[in-house]
């Protein structure tokens, strides 16, 4: 049962990701990106990453996707029906990317990865918090500075100068 669910979710994720990069309508792309994000969230749950799954829903679905839809709405005239976009050089791009995927997949499958014996699922929040406050304190603070910089930078960039 879990296997069937896993393959169903994987197929859903990949098909909707394909729709994101191939759809003619920009809004349909954004909505299938929603399905992709939710599918990836489910894969996180399969990987026992409960905290990261919640963060993924909150940040990606609740934040970034809304931001992207805002971007679409602000950069197209609301009255115009033509919120569409086209692709260039699909053929060449597909050939190059398929070759790349072949090489990548070959490496992924043929490499004898060392898998440690399965441990039990454990609560991840406590250990993530410990790591953030002890081992990764400097990157954590740097990330907060980065977010502050991005906040101020984005506001300054998008302000009308008068």
């Amino acid at each position, binding site marked *: 049962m879990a*296997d069937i669910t896993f393959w169903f979710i994987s197929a859903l994720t*990949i098909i909707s990701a394909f729709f994101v990069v191939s759809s003619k309508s920009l809004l349909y792309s954004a909505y299938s990106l929603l399905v992709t994000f939710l599918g990836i969230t489910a894969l996180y749950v399969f990987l026992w990453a409960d905290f990261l799954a919640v963060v993924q829903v909150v*940040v990606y679905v609740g934040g970034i996707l809304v931001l992207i839809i805002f971007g679409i709405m602000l950069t197209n005239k609301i009255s115009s029906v033509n919120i569409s976009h086209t692709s260039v050089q699909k053929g060449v791009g597909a050939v190059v*990317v398929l070759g790349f995927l072949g090489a990548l997949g070959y490496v992924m499958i043929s490499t004898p990865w060392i898998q440690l014996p399965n441990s039990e699922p454990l609560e991840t929040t406590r250990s993530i918090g410990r790591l953030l406050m002890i081992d990764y304190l400097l990157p954590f603070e740097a990330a907060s500075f980065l977010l502050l910089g*991005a906040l101020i930078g984005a506001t300054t960039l998008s302000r009308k100068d008068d």
Partner: protein
Amino acid sequence: MENLSNYLVISSILFSLGLFGVVTRRNGVAVLMGVELILNAANLNFLAFARFGGMNMSGHVYALFVIVLAAAEAAVALAIIINIFNNFNTINIDDVSEMKQ
């Protein structure tokens, strides 16, 4: 689902689809969507290696940092795209080839 390669193959496919979006799309927002797909594929890899490396929590922390970077990147990229739209009245990135108009 109890196999590392499955997750690696799924994330490779997601990465390739994102790359395809980045190289073929002409709309700036659509290119941004491709970048988000690539970042998600990388995150999936981090978590898969964490899970099959004996629940190594450092992978989770790295994935958290990737999400933080993705949020900052999306905000700044959309600010830039809206600025481009205000200046050039288009977000077709092939048409935006001048530093100053």
